[in-house]
């Protein structure tokens, strides 16, 4: 039988005290699983709350942006400076655009008169003649930028009584 030195055969008294101790570190270690579960639970709850807050904020922003885009669309649809006028009453006809007026519309006047709260781009597309009028800024190329697009029906009133179907669209971001 191999002879080990005495120090390896019998642990040092201090080491033996640590090995046999059941009151200090051992008590704390028993609470660790519970502590871990509590930390995980709190993390899950905080993450859920954070996500809910972010979602709610985005939803509110999107709703606000959507309402602004919608009201701007309606404002442009009845913007007198681009509308055809009735033959007898000379009243501006809502939703019926005069192409000559669209050609010479001043973007600065449009911005001043309709006063949008966000950057915008508005287009009027003659669906028969494939002619498009565009006003405002170029929409951002970054797809992450939140934006809203609204569109509605309109009419291009040509000289001579012809009326083409058109699509009026607004992008706001």
């Amino acid at each position, binding site marked *: 039988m191999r002879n080990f030195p005495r120090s390896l055969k019998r642990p040092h008294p201090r080491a033996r005290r640590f090995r046999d101790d*059941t009151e200090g570190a*051992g*008590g704390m270690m*028993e*609470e660790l*699983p*519970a*502590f871990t*579960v*509590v930390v*995980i*639970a*709190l993390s*899950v*709850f905080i*993450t*859920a*709350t954070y*996500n*809910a807050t972010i*979602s*709610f904020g985005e*939803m509110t922003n999107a*709703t606000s942006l*959507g*309402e602004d885009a*919608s009201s701007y669309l*309606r404002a442009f*649809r009845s913007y007198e400076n681009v509308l055809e006028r009735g033959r007898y009453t000379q009243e501006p006809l809502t*939703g*019926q655009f005069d192409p000559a007026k669209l050609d010479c519309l001043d973007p600065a006047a449009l911005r001043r008169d309709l006063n949008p709260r966000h950057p915008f781009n508005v287009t009027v597309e003659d*669906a*028969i003649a494939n002619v498009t009028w565009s006003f405002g800024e170029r929409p951002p190329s970054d797809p992450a930028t939140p934006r809203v697009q*609204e*569109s*509605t*029906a*309109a*009419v291009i009133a040509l000289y001579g*009584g*012809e*009326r*083409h*179907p*058109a*699509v009026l669209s607004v992008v706001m971001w």
Partner: protein
Amino acid sequence: MTKSRFSRQRKGVSALFDALVFFVILLVASGVLMLAVTSIAASTAESDSTRELGRYASEVQASALVCTVGPQNCTVNGSEVTMGLMSVMKCIVTIIDIRLSGNMCLISNLTSVVLTTYSLLINNRFHFAVLAELDDNGSPFFLSDSAGSTAQMGRVRWTNAVPLHAGGSEGTLTLFLWR
């Protein structure tokens, strides 16, 4: 010594049990929170959508009816007739008048230009149908981008109706939109 260790183990198990209960409660609370936000978002989007689409239907209808079509040819009693520039409303009235007169007419050109005008105005996300009904005539005039009848329209739809005068009677011209 043995009793003390057992007591500590009980305490540890009890703490773990409490922590698990806490975990379950927070998990349920997180779920409820996320569900609430999702349902609020869905209901807001739904109500906005309904309000906006009602307005959209009326704008499409108003625009479509003043658009002009033509000149168009159609065959009446074997002879070709050219119809000049006319509004979509006038075109629909003409179609109804021809149908009521009982003449042998090929009016597919007229119906197709009406359909085309509505198609150009309406966003591709929607299907649509146009129904013209006269109060004292049981044969309604129906046009739709998807073949079928009123029964095949979507369950949730938006409508806009305007008065119609054709063939000496009154009625309504209704636009249906659905997804």
